């Protein structure tokens, strides 16, 4: 998708004014989406994303120019514009390319672009019908089928010339339960870095529909969650969003490299309970958040962030690496060519521990059992995080009493990690889209069941 001779010419142009590093990223991507509402396919869309970006560094400053015009002329125009914005520097020589294709066709058995949309529609239909069967209180089911095939090429003045094809498929179902005056929702959104064969092994559409519908109905009949400070048990899978928000974002070079993260300068120090080991892994076969190669052309890695409570590493991109004087970790990502890449999470999870899940609840006294978490956000400078509990249960005297709705959890990353007092064995990953400076990228969150000894629960 990018001729090496043109690439060389463009890179030379980009560093002409003293830039000491330049990079070209070219992308061609087909997105397929199907949306079903009220039992009928409402929209079916095929979109083609096409463009390129040229990035130039001078020391720790970066210029990024992007365009839809990926012809030689279009790329040269970007390079000229970028070079014009660079104010001097030590310059660099364009190294000979070492071309590596990271595409792994053996991982993808059935390219979604080879599957008829009508066949995809059947999966959404099955999920929606299953959701409707759960209860007459289900008044709406929205089923979304999503796939994309993204072809990329990234090359730079240091000789990187990487190509890759990323294929992802996902089924997302939300159900609405209503009693006429109140609505409650439930959802389930599994996906993987797989083709359409995902429906043979990873996704059972009926189960997805049922999970979403059951959650909506449960929440419709749940009283409001009481507010207060209490112990909280967070279940596996999407529960891992707690580490993602409370710690993950604050370990990205984006905030660490300029010193604003609460975890900046704490390498080798204890930041979490001894029972916490956390990993950001881009290499898990077929995982939603996996990448063969990152968007700067670095092969994916497995990065241990926290080991037995001690901070061992950060997630570091090229620019961050220059500021921090630490090696890159192959986790630089971007939503598309329209974003300059930066350090991001991949599949981030708390590693399995030794604690028994049943004992965790039995010994917690009164508190909250957060079975399904929603999304959240964090302010890396202060560590203040928040996230929603989509399906929660009140625990009284170590026994699950009844479901509660409308709960949210807030706290400070540095404090909550030290308050994790149990880590279970049943690690599971769950899929999400993570938004940050370089756009929205697919990530996994994950953990076994864990317990936090005390946390502020927002409710009504």
């Amino acid at each position, binding site marked *: 998708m990018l001729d090496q001779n043109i690439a060389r010419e463009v890179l030379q142009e980009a560093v002409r004014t003293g830039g000491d590093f330049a990079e070209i990223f070219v992308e*061609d991507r087909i997105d397929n*989406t*199907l*949306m079903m509402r009220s039992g*009928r*396919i409402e*929209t*079916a*869309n*095929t*979109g*083609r*994303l*096409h463009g390129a970006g040229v990035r130039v560094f001078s020391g*720790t*400053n*970066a*210029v*990024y*120019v992007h*365009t*839809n015009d990926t012809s030689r002329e279009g790329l040269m125009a970007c390079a000229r*514009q*970028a070079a014009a*914005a660079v104010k001097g520097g030590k310059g660099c020589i364009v190294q000979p390319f070492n071309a590596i294709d990271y595409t792994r066709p053996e991982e993808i058995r059935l390219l979604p672009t080879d599957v008829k*949309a*009508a066949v995809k*529609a059947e999966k959404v239909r099955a999920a929606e019908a299953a959701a409707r069967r759960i209860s007459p209180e289900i008044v*709406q089911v*929205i089923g979304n089928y999503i796939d994309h095939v993204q072809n990329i090429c990234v090359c730079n003045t240091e000789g990187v010339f990487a190509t890759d094809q990323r294929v992802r498929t996902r089924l997302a179902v939300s159900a*609405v339960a209503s009693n006429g*005056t109140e*609505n*409650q*929702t439930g959802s389930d959104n599994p996906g993987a870095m797989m083709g359409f064969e995902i429906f043979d092994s990873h996704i059972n559409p009926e189960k997805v529909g049922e999970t979403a519908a059951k959650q909506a109905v449960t929440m419709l009949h749940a009283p409001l969650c009481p*507010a207060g400070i209490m112990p909280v048990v967070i279940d596996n899978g999407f529960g891992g969003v707690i580490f993602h928000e409370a710690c993950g974002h604050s370990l990205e070079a984006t905030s660490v490299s*300029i*010193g*604003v993260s*609460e975890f900046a300068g704490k390498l080798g120090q204890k930041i979490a309970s001894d029972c916490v080991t956390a990993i950001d892994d881009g290499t898990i076969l077929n995982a939603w958040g996996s990448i063969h190669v990152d968007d700067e052309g670095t092969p994916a890695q497995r990065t241990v962030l926290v080991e037995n409570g001690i901070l061992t590493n950060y997630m570091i991109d090229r620019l961050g690496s220059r500021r921090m004087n630490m090696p890159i970790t192959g986790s630089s990502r971007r939503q598309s060519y*329209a974003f*300059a890449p930066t350090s991001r999470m991949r599949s981030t999870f708390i590693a399995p521990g030794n604690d028994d899940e049943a004992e965790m609840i039995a010994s917690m006294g009164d508190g909250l059992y957060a079975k399904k978490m*929603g999304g*959240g*956000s964090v*302010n890396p*400078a*202060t560590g*203040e*995080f*928040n*996230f*929603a509990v989509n399906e929660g249960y009140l625990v009284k005297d170590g026994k699950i009493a009844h479901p509660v709705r*409308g709960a*949210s959890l*807030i706290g400070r990353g540095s404090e909550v990690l030290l308050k994790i007092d149990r880590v279970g064995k049943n690690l599971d990953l769950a899929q999400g889209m993570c938004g940050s400076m370089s756009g929205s990228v697919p990530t996994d969150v994950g953990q076994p069941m864990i317990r936090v000894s005390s946390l*502020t629960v*927002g*409710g*009504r």
Partner: protein
Amino acid sequence: MDMNLFIDRVLEAAKAAGIDTAEVYYTAGENFRAAALEGEINRYQVSASQNLSLRGTVNGKMGTSSTQAFDEAAIQQLVEGVKESAALVETDEQDEIYAGDAEYPVIPEVESDIKETTAETKLALCLAMEKAAKAADERVWKVQRAMVSTGSSTIRMKNSYGLDLTDEGSYCMAYAAPIAKAEGKTATGGWMEAGSKFADLDAERIGKKAVEETVCQLGGKPVPGGEYRVIMRFDAMQSLLQTFAGIFSAENAQQNLSLLKGKEGETIASPVVTLMDDPLLPGGFGSQRFDGEGSASRTKAVIDGGVLTTLLHSRKTARKQGVQTTGNAHRAGGAIRVAPTNFFFKPGEKDLDALMADVGDGLVITDLAGLHSGANAVSGDFSLLSKGYTIEGGKRGHAVEQITVAGNFYEVLKSIVAVGSDLDFSGSSIGSPSVDVGTLKVSG
């Protein structure tokens, strides 16, 4: 390929392929963004982007497809995409291609210098904002963001009925976000200004205001849990309205995703509440002469004195209810959705100080976090990490943080006591003044 030619070629190819009615929607934009860090420009981003979507009917069913590549292959991909998509669509109620209105409003132009402003001027503003923020208070430790963004966009819509419409817009925006430290505590904050005249962006003012917003949070602490009288400052209320704007969509109501279904003509809010959708606001971020289907834009009150006068409609949702479209069709990818334009609570008489004096004891909330997860647009429930300050005896008390404020947006509409005078759009198409929302549950 020349874009005019490309658009005509796409429409011809659609016709030749048996697509009955077809429409091209083309958007092009140029954007500039830069940021300063420690006295240097550390981020500089320039882009030119184009996107073209085709929608068309085959046997009465609407298909959609879009592209950012503009070659021969793209024409085929667009046409085939529309045909495949139309064959799949099952809904009875269909979007339609519209032949257009007889007249379109003219939005008074506001003065704009964005096209003439050089990159050097924009970079200088970034550096000056950072400097101003650092100089404003010794507790400022760093300015994590001092950024400027400008952009311009063009829309062209051309269809097989001969409708051919264009619209243009531009904006500029500046934002500073300092971090303050004192006595082992860290606080963040920020201030943003936006508009259509770059020369109006004042580095000193933005820098200072950003610092005020930040240092006032130092020493913040939770308040005891309980019920509190709450004023949502204009920016917090703006973010709440933005989160729940979808409940006013007729599309959502018809799909059982909004509890306002069938509530037209009923009182759904306090009598002090009037909610406007005004696409003709000069210089508004959501201003448009025509909507995503080519319907002429018009101004309307969605809530008038507490009464729901109308939901927001596209042609399809209006036809289903036997009413006229409100001109709120919105392009999302290739598909038509319903969305507000410039959407705001009509301001009242009192400023924030006067609202606080009326409240006596309570809380002003200045920041709500995690709206994408802690607020449910379908149920109306929210439980959000919040910041602000106490109101004690009608005056500003101490800074508050690490609390959640919880409620239900439908109930908030009804419990609003007063709407302030300080309408602000926070650099978006959604706006609000500060609002005394009555009593909410706080946990801390």
